[in-house]
């Protein structure tokens, strides 16, 4: 079932949003840009930290809605810095970065918060709260958006069902394996139906099989319309899970392979 709604008035530029009810039963809100407006637009993007280290230099790149993008490169190439910039963790030093129609250089704190609410983030160390149960961890993004507890439970249950952890709703993360913890992190990232999922080496600490299953979930979310941008060192995964590969080297764009 497809239902279109006009959101151009609210965002002020040519765009519209699409609600898609997928086969998994989730209604995903996808922001569709006009042909001139990619989801993420970078132009001569530069990031220099206060320490003087240049993390990114002269990066020009467009990422369209619905793409699955791998960010690859050696350690220190700028992958994590780029992901941080995409959720407003750091601001560009110069150049242009427009994410979901918001110029990240000049965006106010409230606009940055809007971006974060529409973005799911998965970390290599998954950043789960170990003093809180799986339900509380997964419910956190919705709680931040003001959902009441009664409304949260069915939603969280549904998301955990999707990642195969429905029976671990009230368990604590320390009782879960590494792969299960990463699936909880995926559930947390997708629970608020984000337009984009940013994954910073989500398979870094996992064995090949578990990494593959984690990537299966991300691929599936991508098929449902969510844009996924994933920094990774695990190049072997690209064979089984193809996508656009953006290669960074010393903070610059070293290659862009649309379908690896």
């Amino acid at each position, binding site marked *: 079932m497809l239902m279109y709604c006009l959101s151009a008035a609210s965002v002020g530029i040519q765009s519209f949003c699409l609600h898609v009810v997928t086969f998994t039963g989730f209604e995903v809100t996808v922001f569709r840009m006009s042909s001139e407006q990619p989801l993420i637009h970078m132009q001569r993007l530069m990031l220099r930290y206060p320490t003087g280290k240049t993390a990114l230099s002269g990066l020009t790149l467009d990422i369209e809605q619905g793409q699955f993008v791998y960010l690859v490169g050696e350690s220190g190439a700028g992958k994590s810095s780029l992901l941080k910039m995409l959720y407003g963790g750091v601001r560009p030093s110069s150049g242009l970065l427009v994410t979901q129609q918001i110029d990240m250089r000049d965006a106010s704190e409230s606009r940055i918060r809007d971006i974060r609410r529409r973005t799911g983030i998965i970390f290599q160390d998954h950043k789960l709260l170990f003093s*809180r149960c799986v*339900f509380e961890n997964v*419910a*956190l993004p919705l709680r931040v*958006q003001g959902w009441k507890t009664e409304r949260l439970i069915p939603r969280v249950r549904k998301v955990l069902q999707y990642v195969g952890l429905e029976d671990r709703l009230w368990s604590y993360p320390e009782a879960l394996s590494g792969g299960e913890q990463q699936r909880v992190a995926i559930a947390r990232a997708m629970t608020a139906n984000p337009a984009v999922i940013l994954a910073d080496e989500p398979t870094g600490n996992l064995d090949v099989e578990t990494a593959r299953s984690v990537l299966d979930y991300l691929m599936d979310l991508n098929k449902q319309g969510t844009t996924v941008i994933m920094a990774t060192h695990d190049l072997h995964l690209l064979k089984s899970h193809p996508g656009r590969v953006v290669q960074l080297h010393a903070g610059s764009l070293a290659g862009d392979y649309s379908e690896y």
Partner: protein
Amino acid sequence: MIPDKINPRLPGGFNLPPFGVHQILALIIVCISLWAVGTLWLGMQAASQWVGSWQDDIHIHVYIDGEKSDITKSLEQELASIAQVSSVRRISQEEAARWMQEWLTGGGLEQHELVKRLPVTFELSLTDEKSEFLFADIRDTARRFGAQINEDEVNLAQVHDLLSQVSYLAWFASLILAIAMALIISNTLRMTLLARADEIHLMRLLGAKEWFVRTPFILEGMLLGAGAGVLAWLLLWPVVLGVGGWMATMQVDLNAWVLLLPLLFGGGIVGTLGAVIATARVVSRETSV
């Protein structure tokens, strides 16, 4: 459906953080400080009532040599003309001698000799002993006629000045204790904030508004202060009951109820202030907010 024994504690907003040993310690310390403040003001209340009990009935006596009987009438008129003097009563030497004999319970003094040696006394009743120049006016008038004022009575009459000075000191001590309490609560919440830094950082990464992140800590500070205030008020009762009998002999009736709201709201305000100080610079790594 939430299973039994499961109590989801979602962070942020109006949900209070869990109450731990740090909070209990802070509660005890702030309670003791507020109890000290309460006791101080209870003491001020007692002093004020005690002074008021005899100050309402205070008289000033002016003495003039009995041999200057020609000018006593003029002195009496001059004293009566002072604005804050409501009445002047002349006490003859005979009356004074009689009173003195009674006071000394038959000291064996020769009444006739005593009358000759005693001065004429004027007993002044006052309308407003707090008036700024009253005692200086009485003193000047007495000196002009070669009379003397009872300075001990003047000192007692002016004890309200001393009380007001003590009152300033009490306010100052309360302020210092309030700052100390705010810093104790701030320090406690700071530890809680550090212990929950990951959670705060994560909430910000998920787009939480600042009020959402900080409100639980502000609420905790407010409740900590207000709770300590109520506890401190309860702990005032043993003091009130313990010294009540002794105070009653001095016409002092201590009222601890008037301290309930000041301690409750004072504690709440101090706690909120401490929480605001603690959360003023809650900066998360990797986030610009």
